[in-house]
């Protein structure tokens, strides 16, 4: 708005001055996309005035010309402002960035009346059709000279290259081939026995599983050895075990690992415990069994995001939980309170599935086993301990392992309820953060993809080790039924 003021001023005060000459060149490809570089030479101009650019009859921009010193106006470097202009007083031998006032209005200063050159990269110029540019010189009170020329911006827009899917294709292709080759070898190896039919049955499932998940998992693992960051995707370099070192030496590692284990074990124990107890209760002859089972299964049927949000509302200081318990605890600020809360909600979510699975297993125990024990003089308690529980083991043992894996990587309960809980440690996981929710923060909030991948691989190895030890352990102790 400022330069309007100057122009009006210029029109009234213009003293009659000897004729000036104006010379304009334009360069269509020097200034980049949708920009044209226009350099203007003004000879023998004195006093103040302004230089206006008009593109296809609409005002584009203007440079204020002042005879005198620049004072404390800033000189933004190339690229710092929305567009760039330069001035030169030796007709273009060397250019200096133009001065701009606090609104960014360009000001060209010159001392003695000789050749003053102004160069501007005009923005917003069409690159598909020619526009006419009219450069007008004003002194303080009227227009002195005008030159019309045609301009067009020739630099093309450089679109970023589409993500090349070749590595993905290569990975999927190669993994598919290796799997087929592997199955071929295995089939040849079992050629003598009947077992080879099995391979044909397993192939489709295995292929689908590996096709979809091999590349992402492999990509994740490779990423964990690089310094990948959101700000440099595609140009990450290998940085050895640095990420893993960061993971193990990061401040909250032991704390978050400890809570993850507490979270997982408590959840699985209560899921199997309460689920088993409910299954046994429902095993007895009790009326309304269907109603009970359907009601008790609702937490599994209702989408977990709505139920978790309702629990969040109920654990609010004025929420239902505090009303029922007569307490005013702020479950979201105390660490232990928050941890108890998230575990209780996840137990509420996980029990139905276990209840159903265990009640299935219970039903497969024939009734006359119990009767035989009763006749043999075995008490109810001893029957439970020596018959029911051992016979449930072959079902519960693998079930608990799956429960462990699911709960260890259970993301959305904690994310929705506390988003990592009371954040009391700077730059570290929060109170109720478990490994997977912290991985989300590292990856999507901090953008450190390499480090997050390392965390994920650490989770993966821990789970794999635990499951391997668990299956080995349970195989040994499991009463081979």
């Amino acid at each position, binding site marked *: 708005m400022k330069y309007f003021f100057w122009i009006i001023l210029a029109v009234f005060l213009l003293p009659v001055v000897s004729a000036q000459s104006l010379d304009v060149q334009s360069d269509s490809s020097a200034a980049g996309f949708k920009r044209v570089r226009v350099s203007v030479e003004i000879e023998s101009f004195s006093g103040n005035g302004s230089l206006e650019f008009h593109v296809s009859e609409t005002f584009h921009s203007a440079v204020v010309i002042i005879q005198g010193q620049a004072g404390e106006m800033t000189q933004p470097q190339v690229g710092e402002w929305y567009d760039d202009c330069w001035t030169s007083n030796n007709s273009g031998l060397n250019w200096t960035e133009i001065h701009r006032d606090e609104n960014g209005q360009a000001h060209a200063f010159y001392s003695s009346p000789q050749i003053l050159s102004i160069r501007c990269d005009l923005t917003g110029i069409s690159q598909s059709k020619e526009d006419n540019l009219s450069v007008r010189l004003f002194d303080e009170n009227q227009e002195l000279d005008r030159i019309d020329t045609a301009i067009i911006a020739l630099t093309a827009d450089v679109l970023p290259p589409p993500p090349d899917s070749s590595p993905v294709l290569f990975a999927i292709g190669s993994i598919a081939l290796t799997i087929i080759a592997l199955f071929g070898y295995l089939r040849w190896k079992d050629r003598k026995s009947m077992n080879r039919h099995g391979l044909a049955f397993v192939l489709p499932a295995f292929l689908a599983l590996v096709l979809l998940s091999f590349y992402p998992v492999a990509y994740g693992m490779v990423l964990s050895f690089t310094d990948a960051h959101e700000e440099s995707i595609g140009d990450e370099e290998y940085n050895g075990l640095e990420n893993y070192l960061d993971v193990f030496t990061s401040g909250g590692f032991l704390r978050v690992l400890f809570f993850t284990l507490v979270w997982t074990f408590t959840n699985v124990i209560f899921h199997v415990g309460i689920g088993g107890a409910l299954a046994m209760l429902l095993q007895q002859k009790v009326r309304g069994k269907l109603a009970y089972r359907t009601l008790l299964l609702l937490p599994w049927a209702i989408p977990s995001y709505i139920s978790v949000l309702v629990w969040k509302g109920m654990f609010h200081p004025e929420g239902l939980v505090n009303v029922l318990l007569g307490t005013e605890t702020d479950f979201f600020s105390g660490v232990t309170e928050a941890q108890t809360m998230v575990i209780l909600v996840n137990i509420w979510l996980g029990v139905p599935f276990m209840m159903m699975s265990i009640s299935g297993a219970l039903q497969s125990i*024939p009734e006359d086993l119990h009767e035989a024990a009763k*006749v043999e003089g075995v008490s109810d308690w*001893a029957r439970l301990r020596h018959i029911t529980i051992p016979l449930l083991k072959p079902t519960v043992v693998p079930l608990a392992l799956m429960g462990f894996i699911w709960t260890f990587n259970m993301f959305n309960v904690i994310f929705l309820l506390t988003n990592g809980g009371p954040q009391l440690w700077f730059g570290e996981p929060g109170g109720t953060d478990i490994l997977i929710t912290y991985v989300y923060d590292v990856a999507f909030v901090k953008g450190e993809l390499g480090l997050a991948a390392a965390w994920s691989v650490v989770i993966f190895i821990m789970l794999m080790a635990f499951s391997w030890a668990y299956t080995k352990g349970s195989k040994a102790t499991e*009463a081979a039924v």
Partner: protein
Amino acid sequence: MSGVSFEGIRKVYDDGTVAVKGLDLTIKDGEFLVLVGPSGCGKSTTLRMLAGLEDLTEGSIKIGEATVDHLPARARGLGMVFQSYALYPHMSVQDNLTFGLRMLAKTERPDPPEMKRMVQETASMLGIDDILEKRPRDLSGGQRQRVALGRALIRKPKVILMDEPLSNLDAKLRNQMRVELRRLHDELGFTTVYVTHDQVEAMTLADRIAVMKDGELQQHCPPLEAYHQPANTFVASFLGTPAMNLIEGQAEAGVFTSNGLSFPLPDHLSDCTGKGTFGIRPENVKVLKSNAMEAEIRGVERLGSESVYHLNVGGTDIKALWHRSGEEAWDAEKGGWPEENMFISFNDPSALWFSA
């Protein structure tokens, strides 16, 4: 070992069906009683009430002198063998045998050497000492059956209860086990209550049988007595294969007439009159060459040692049994009676009359 007595026991399920209608039965100490009858006749329910697995609606049960009406199963000191053997799949044979003992209170639990001895003794008695370490699923049907029996015997129970223990075995093994069961019983002399629907088992195993139908005791007597003097048509038709011929009709003045068939009653039945059922076992049907009732042959089942002739006499189907040792074997070489113009007569002392 002690006897068992049922005094007027009744069992009505919650939904009102009456499984046992007032059964009175006494089993002497050391006796082998077989409860036999078609399925759903209440024999299993009776056994389960004795075992304490089903509660008693009315009446009283005594084991020895002690009444056990509402005692829990574990208090009755019984041994039971189930149809499905009900072996604990997750325990070895040895553990299966000793499970009951191991669960006793410390005061009464036999100490380990004693328990070892009991296991050895039972195992050798049943010939299962070589499979003590095996799991039930690795055993054959016969072995499982013996382990189940061993489990019941090891605690020296007052009474052994068996619920159709042989029905899961194949025919050959079943015969073998029947003989062995009988041998064991005679050797150890334990009181046994055995439930089966197979009348052959009943006849071969039982000291005395109790035939039941629709929750009511039909007859309680030694097997042969029931075979020869069935208390009613049901018992008659139930025991013996092929089943007894039963013909309903009218008897007066020594002559029995049924629709399209009439013949003179044997002497010992000559004074029976009125409506009733005439019964004669196929093996007692006399086959003659002439002057008797003409019988048309419908089919012959030749089993080698004997053949069953399906005949039709005046519109009534009659079965006759030819047995190799039968004295009037007409055509011994050809193994059986002629194929045509056969005459039969019912005049035999074993014939029976059931007045309606």
